[in-house]
């Protein structure tokens, strides 16, 4: 696309400085971005839906697989291999493969994006459960918890930090991969980027929205983890355990 063609698509405002920025294809034309921001709202919302639904579905699926393989440990290697294979399918190929089955649209994109989250989240749940101290499980069993009670009252709560860590990685990577969802006809910020590939302000703005979305998701998930794991020591309220019992009181 030439500059001329590009200019044809851009609504030129009467401020000359701004117009020249757009004409020169400057790194980031702030006024243009402000004036045209409404164009980015729908793609951002589409992107948000893609990420939220895919990660939520991935979490539910991975969780089910983890529960399934918890007492059938022989299932873990094939499940890791299987989700690993899904993870390696190039996204373009994935969309194309799905097209005859699910057609173009959001559903196709969500299926592929969900499949990509499985590997990360499943592995983290399995690792989280494996890292639960043997003593805690032994104590739970020895005090008369049934296997289900040990799982839900001891193992899963203790695995929460690792599970949330998996969801965080999966979310951030899904925000990135979802920029290709437009190839399946699912819109999103990727569609916006692709629509004006050689207009720098557009790339910076749409890309920036992706980054901002990833950061906001990550912060929200971090906050969620803190709320879910009040027992985890925090820098501010960490209380060193006294070395000798007599000296147990640490002034608050």
């Amino acid at each position: 696309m030439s500059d001329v063609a590009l200019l044809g698509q851009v609504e030129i405002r009467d401020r000359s400085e701004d117009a020249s920025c757009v004409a020169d294809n400057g790194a980031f034309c702030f006024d243009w971005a402000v004036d045209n921001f409404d164009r980015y709202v729908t793609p951002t919302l589409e992107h948000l839906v893609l990420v939220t639904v895919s990660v939520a579905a991935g979490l539910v699926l991975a969780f089910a697989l983890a529960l399934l393989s918890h007492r059938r440990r022989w299932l873990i290697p094939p499940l890791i291999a299987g989700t690993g294979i899904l993870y390696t399918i190039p996204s373009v190929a994935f969309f194309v493969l799905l097209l005859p089955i699910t057609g173009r649209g959001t559903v196709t994109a969500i299926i592929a994006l969900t499949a990509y989250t499985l590997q990360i989240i499943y592995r983290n749940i399995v690792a989280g459960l494996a890292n639960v101290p043997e003593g805690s499980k032994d104590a739970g069993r020895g005090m008369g918890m049934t296997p289900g009670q040990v799982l839900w009252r001891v193992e899963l709560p203790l695995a929460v930090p690792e599970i949330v860590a998996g969801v965080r990685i999966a979310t951030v990577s899904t925000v990135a991969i979802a920029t290709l969802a437009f190839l399946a006809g699912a819109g999103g910020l990727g569609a916006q980027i692709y629509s004006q590939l050689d207009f720098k302000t557009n790339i910076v703005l749409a890309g920036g929205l992706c980054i901002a979305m990833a950061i906001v998701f990550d912060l929200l998930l971090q906050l969620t983890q803190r709320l879910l794991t009040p027992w985890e020591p925090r820098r501010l309220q960490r209380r060193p355990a006294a070395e000798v019992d007599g000296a147990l009181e640490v002034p608050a």
Partner: protein
Amino acid sequence: MAGDAARQAVSVEYREVTKRYPGASGAAIKSLSLEVPAGEICVLVGPSGCGKTTAMRMVNRTVEITDGDILVGGVSVREQQPAELRRQTGYVIQQIGLFSHRTIADNIATVPSLLDWDRDRVRTRVAELLELIGLGPEMADRYPAQLSGGQQQRVGVARALAADPPLMLMDEPFGAIDPINRERLQNEFLRLQAELRKTVLFVTHDIDEAIKMGDRVAVLKEGGILAQYATPAELLMAPADGFVEDFVGADRALKRLALLRVSDVDLWQAPLAFVGQATSEVRAKLDGAEVPHALLVDSERRPLGWLSERDLARDTVPATPDASPNPRLEVDDVLRDALSDLMQAESMYAPVLDGRGAIVGVLSVEVISDFLHSPAAAEEEHTAAERPLAE
């Protein structure tokens, strides 16, 4: 107090119990029979691989019995649902196994909540137990990571006691604690036990701990064979075979001293002297005395010092004798500590005082050594430790 509603402790009886793990060549436990009377601490001790933990775990069926049976309070554990059985049985393990995601109060309330106690009852019980283990009520809302190792282990014990089980299983409960705190926790547990009178199966690899904690000690050797089951005193005086003798150690005579107090031995008497007394009188008493030195005491018979030859060369007994009366021992001192004091002070004799500080006799290394070889020693050891002779 917790003890009021305490359930009657129960006896535990192993009947020809054998455990074979699948794939293992030999048995982990071979035809083990022993009986633990209600309210006593039975310590299972032995080198690693002797099956002591396996033997303990078959009681609450965290390990299944291959052959034979275990009766708890006369009822076979094989006839009970594992989860039910375990909720009736206190369980303390070396790794403590506190739930790090639950507060101290919630940890202690584990079994009561499995038993669906109502909220108020649980809260009362938790407060009671925190007091019992000497933790302040403000600890209730903390998490395990905020407690020291010793405090965590106390919480582990409280958690096991929560539903007031008649039987406690303790698998190396103090094994991961530093020596100073371990000793403190052992003493605390013995104090608790004197009050609660639970039946306790206690696993350790440390013979000193076994002798200290056990009313009875079962020594197991490799292959899960019971080498000897006896009171600590019997174990030290009459090891059943070479294995037990080796296991209790070459210092078993010293270990016996740990079971005794100064008041258990027949002390010698020293001639007593008072300030201003004629030395001729004192010298007369020295002839044929058990202790060949005179001890200067005040009017309350509290020792002031030993009189030297030079002191006795005067006409009257001086107020400031040459030799100090240290080390001074008390009748309640453990005999091993008393011996250590004697050795450390490089002293032949030490005056032994009663609660008011008055002299009751004199202890010497010779007294101890004579006592250990006397037939009276065996008798004394049992009464001293308030442990009845077996059978």
